[in-house]
């Protein structure tokens, strides 16, 4: 149920609206019955499409208010757009180090289940913080004293929550590189879901709903350092260990794709 908060600054609909009940469709069925729905292997990530500079470059000289760097990232049906502004003067500042700020938002129509409220939800704030923690270690913040680097991420379409966060991390890394921010390495992220005793890469929403445990890892492959691990749900320590191993390997593969895109953008 969506309770719409009345806000005079927006066009308001009725106070209460709900999703209709969709007939007895595939809900409740095992999404893995007969292999994965889209025919992928268990360790296969959905096809990635990435483009740098959709919000900052252009045929003519970009306007002054355009972003310093930007990227569009697509992984299956997950679509994320990110703009990076900076280094610029910011609200918070630190005399020794730059500040990296991130704002993560879902577009109101991004999720397949219900429409999201305009008011920023707690989960969006939480994910913003996660993205900051995952990406900030890669940035040479000491090179930008007193400055602020802002990343704004908008999810245009979501399919799997963990996969969306991973996509956001990859998108921010690419946008930071596009903005020419000094970094130690690009951060590549990948998510997995547990199915029985087997880890399944890059789960879509239906697969994620059926998985008892999910894992998200952000990794800097050249430096071989992990910047973020998030495990949700139930798994044995051995399974978690194994997940960290497989997931970092997959991050390296995603990293190769990101690097190829970044190289192509320079040619």
């Amino acid at each position: 149920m969506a309770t719409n908060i009345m806000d005079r600054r927006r066009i308001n609909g009725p106070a209460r609206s709900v999703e209709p009940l969709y007939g007895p469709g595939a809900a409740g069925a095992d999404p893995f019955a007969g292999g994965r729905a889209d025919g992928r292997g268990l360790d296969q990530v959905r096809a990635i499409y990435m483009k740098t500079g959709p919000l900052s470059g252009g045929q003519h000289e970009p306007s002054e208010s355009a972003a310093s760097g930007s990227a569009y990232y697509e992984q299956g049906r997950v679509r994320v757009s990110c703009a990076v502004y900076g280094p610029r003067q910011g609200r918070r500042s630190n005399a020794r180090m730059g500040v990296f700020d991130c704002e993560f938002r879902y577009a109101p129509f991004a999720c397949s289940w219900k429409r999201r409220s305009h008011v920023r939800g707690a989960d969006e704030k939480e994910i913003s913080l996660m993205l900051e923690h995952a990406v900030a270690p890669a940035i040479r913040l000491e090179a930008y004293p007193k400055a602020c680097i802002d990343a704004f991420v908008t999810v245009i379409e979501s399919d799997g929550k963990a996969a969306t966060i991973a996509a956001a991390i990859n998108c921010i890394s690419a946008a930071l590189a596009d903005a020419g921010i000094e970094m130690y390495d690009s951060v590549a992220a990948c998510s997995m879901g547990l199915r029985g005793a087997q880890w399944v890469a890059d789960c879509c929403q239906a697969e994620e709903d059926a998985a008892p445990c999910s894992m998200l890892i952000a990794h800097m492959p050249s430096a071989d350092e992990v910047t973020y691990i998030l495990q949700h749900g139930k798994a044995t320590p051995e399974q978690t260990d194994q997940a960290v191993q497989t997931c970092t390997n997959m991050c390296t593969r995603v990293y190769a794709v990101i690097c190829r895109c970044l190289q192509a953008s320079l040619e």
Partner: protein
Amino acid sequence: MAATAGQVAFAMEAFRRIHPVEFQRRFLSQETRHDGRAFGQFRATQVVKGTISSAQGSSTVRIGDTTVVCGIKAEVCEPDVRRPDEGYLVTNVDLSPMCSARFRAGPPGESAQVASEHIFRLFSGHVVDLRELCIESGQAAWVLSADIVCVRHDGNVLDAAIIALMAALEDLALPRATLDAGAVTADRSATTRLTLRRRLAPATFTLVDDAYLVADADDAEEQLATASLLVVLDGDGRLANVWKRGAGAIGRADIARCIEAAAARISATGE
């Protein structure tokens, strides 16, 4: 010593940043624009429908570098007691800090509020017949939440928003819904399309620097705007809306010419 091409480009970039007004005037006084367009020329417009599968209707529109995405989510609500046979169309424009450094995070700013309100009045009841959204009189109706998200702001967002909403409404596939035992059940396999009363096509003209009337201004030109004129025509070439904003004076003859130019643009793009 002759300057190299790189030096010229650098000097031009510096000039543009330091004296943006003078930079634009140099072009405009020569009857041209900084991106090489003629005064009456629109940027290329690209419309793609059905871009988002999590929404019941969607579209992506590009006018030059300006990009907006419109998604329509259909939900069920109780109709207003005063209008038991009508549903709702709720249109909101979102100008986030992602699309331009000019916008702040948080609740919508003034320009977003004005755009939302204007588009709402333009569409609700005039384009969509709200009675078509009724499921069961007095008990259940559809509420269409159309959210127009600006991904990149390079001027003329209002035109892009109107085109995007129009395209998303055309793309909208509403599942067939029935009310039984107090719950609305919808069938995704049987969808209907809305019959739209009229097809709106917008064109915006901007008075730059109080002297030059240009079509489809980009962000740099909008910064020097003293007035703007939005002309919305419907499929039969009749006027649906004329909206002049700003203190700058636009002559009556100019307004007539703008309306003609808007009609010419629509027939040229085949919309």
